[in-house]
């Protein structure tokens, strides 16, 4: 920096201080939404140490700070992928076709809680939950209905399924077989990220060692048979929803990623190969500038971790590709129409941050599942950003902004500090056992709530600008109890028609594979699914063999 620059900067600082003496600023200390201190002004000296080629570089080149493709959205837009599913397979199939007709470009399946936790609808633990937060899938028969008249070689499908991911992936492959489509031609994603279930989301089934085996079996199986499939979506989304800061979201997600890479390497798999199919999932929260910096920092840090820690040389295995969902936790039940504007700003941040796919929340989701009308507005929000806003016409438009580059550095460095701490604890599995990430997230969540209650953080319509309003007349989507009764009837009919001897034999094979240390579980699960063994039956066998995870309650 030249003397002229330093003099001018000192003069500015003095002038600004003088102005503040006269008219105090809104806060004594400004912070980002994630709690990082934010300066009044960012200038060239804030990014003095940054080397363009090493730290930022060109889009499509290591460390991918500016994006994973050279021309980003000038070629094709991100995948507009709306998470949906409720009631039974019939209703959800109709919703998917509604979304496809309106220009959604990928499907994203929400399963109900019994499906996510490996129970059939007739299990006592499933009572009251059938079809509530997603679609109920008990067997291949339901999956066939779910994708009826949807050509699986033409759409890509993301499935939010974790502990029983193998079973649902097997069902998807079987539906494709019936449509005459080979598994080589399938594209999509399974979430398959158990560590964040232990940390933040809660739909775990099995203990860590068995869960990690199921996951690395999928990496290996897909590498050979479903090569275009994203084998995992390493998720910060739920960590952020549980209350973390932006830095914690990046740090814990990438620390989870490190644990998966280490586990797969231990089974003899090559990170240059399976690394290509790892994908990520981040939140888009309120603070637009911080969020843009967050995505850029995550991309750079992951590329560096893969290169430096794991010796990866394949550029495709260095790239952090990610899906984004706008932050459900920021939606308000009060004045829900305001949520459309929140979602727009959050979605914009993810696009400015270079996302590969995006779900925009609907305005009524603080109250219930979204109606068709509100889902349509959410999708149109993405289309307006894509086609009308202009931000998609040049790559990484925020690069070189003093504040964005400075925050990108800061988020990366703070995330590295967390990852070092987790390394010192013996890795993420040990850290989870000790309750460390859980406690960090809870502390952040509690501080955030206090900030709202002391009005340090303003939430429009909640702690400021409230209006008396009536919720009556607002149309909400309902899933009533008869859905569960219908689903149980279908399940029992299916069981009476299938070849029950074949089911028994093939479930025995799943058990044998589970007992074996070396056998990949996927082929046995695929065979059992094909003869209509239910999800609950398969997970039941695995529960008997692997046991169940018991939460370490941290408060």
């Amino acid at each position, binding site marked *: 920096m030249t003397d002229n620059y330093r003099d001018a900067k000192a003069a500015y600082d003095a002038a600004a201080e003088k102005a503040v003496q006269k008219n105090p600023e809104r806060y004594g200390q400004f912070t980002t939404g994630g709690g990082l201190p934010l300066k009044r002004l960012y200038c060239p000296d804030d990014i003095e140490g940054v080397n363009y080629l090493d730290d930022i570089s060109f889009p499509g080149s290591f460390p991918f700070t500016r994006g994973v493709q050279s021309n980003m959205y000038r070629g094709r837009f991100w995948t507009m992928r709306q998470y949906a599913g409720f009631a039974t397979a019939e209703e959800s199939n109709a919703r998917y076709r509604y979304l496809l007709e309106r220009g959604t470009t990928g499907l994203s399946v929400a399963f109900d809680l019994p499906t996510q936790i490996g129970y059939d609808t007739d299990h006592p633990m499933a009572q009251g939950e059938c079809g509530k937060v997603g679609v109920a899938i008990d067997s291949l028969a339901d999956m066939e209905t779910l994708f009826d008249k949807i050509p699986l070689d033409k759409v890509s499908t993301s499935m939010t399924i974790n502990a029983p991911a193998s079973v649902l992936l097997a069902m998807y492959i079987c539906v494709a077989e019936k449509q005459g489509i080979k598994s080589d031609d399938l594209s999509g994603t399974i979430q398959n990220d158990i560590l964040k279930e232990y940390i933040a989301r809660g739909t775990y089934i099995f203990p860590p060692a068995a869960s990690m085996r199921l996951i690395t079996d999928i990496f290996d199986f897909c590498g050979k048979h479903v090569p275009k499939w994203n084998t995992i979506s390493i998720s910060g989304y739920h960590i952020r*929803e549980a209350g973390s800061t932006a830095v914690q979201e990046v740090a814990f997600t990438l620390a989870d990623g490190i644990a998966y890479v280490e586990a797969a390497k231990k089974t003899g798999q090559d990170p240059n190969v399976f690394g290509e199919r790892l994908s990520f999932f981040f939140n888009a929260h309120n603070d637009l500038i911080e969020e843009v910096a967050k995505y850029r920092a995550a991309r750079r840090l992951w590329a560096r971790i893969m290169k430096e820690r794991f010796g990866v040389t394949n550029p495709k295995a260095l790239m952090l590709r990610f899906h984004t969902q706008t932050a459900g936790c920021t*939606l*308000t039940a009060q004045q829900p129409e305001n949520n459309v504007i929140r979602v727009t700003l959050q979605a914009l941040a993810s696009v400015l941050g270079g996302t590969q796919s995006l779900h925009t929340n609907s305005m009524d989701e603080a109250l219930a599942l979204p109606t068709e009308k509100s889902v349509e507005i959410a999708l149109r929000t993405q289309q307006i950003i894509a086609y009308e806003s202009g931000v998609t016409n040049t790559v990484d438009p925020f690069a070189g902004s003093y504040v964005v580059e400075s925050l990108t550095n800061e988020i990366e460095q703070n995330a590295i500090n967390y990852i070092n701490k987790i390394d010192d604890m013996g890795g993420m599995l040990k850290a989870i056992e000790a309750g460390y990430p859980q406690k960090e997230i809870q502390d952040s969540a509690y501080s955030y709530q206090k900030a709202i209650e002391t009005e340090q953080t303003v939430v429009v319509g909640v702690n400021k600008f409230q209006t008396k309003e009536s919720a009556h007349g607002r149309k909400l989507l309902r899933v009533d109890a008869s859905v569960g009764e219908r689903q149980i009837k279908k399940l029992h009919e299916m069981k009476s028609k299938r070849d029950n001897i074949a089911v028994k034999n093939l479930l025995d094979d799943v058990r044998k594979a589970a007992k074996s240390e070396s056998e990949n579980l996927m082929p046995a699960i695929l065979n059992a699914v094909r003869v209509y063994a239910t999800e609950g039956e398969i997970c039941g066998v695995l529960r008997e063999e692997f046991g169940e995870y018991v939460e370490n309650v941290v408060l």
Partner: protein
Amino acid sequence: MTDKIRVVIAKPGLDGHDRGAKVIARALRDAGMEVIYTGLRQTPEQIVATALQEDADAVGISILSGAHHFYFEKVISLLKEKGAEDIIVFGGGVIPDEDVPDLIAMGAGAVFGPGTSTGTTIDWLKKAVAKDE
């Protein structure tokens, strides 16, 4: 015996969203109450057993999965069965306003929706327990 209000905060069923449950548990504790947090995946039977064992004044149910009708009804009727209808049941989560009257009719004392300040819940609970005694 202490005269501290004793509250069980419970997560019924399969719902994994525990941010709200943990925030309210901490807020009640900071307000001087004795708080027992159950953790995830509790059956109504387990929740009621915990409430009895802990000699709770109140049970707070946190649910965001849409299964609130089922779980409120179960917990409240099991408490009645055990002759423990004096234990106050309240709750919160993603529960539409129009469902609240149903839950109140079942016997819930109050239901707090998204955006409720922890102070509102604390004040209500203090008054409800005082009235009960």
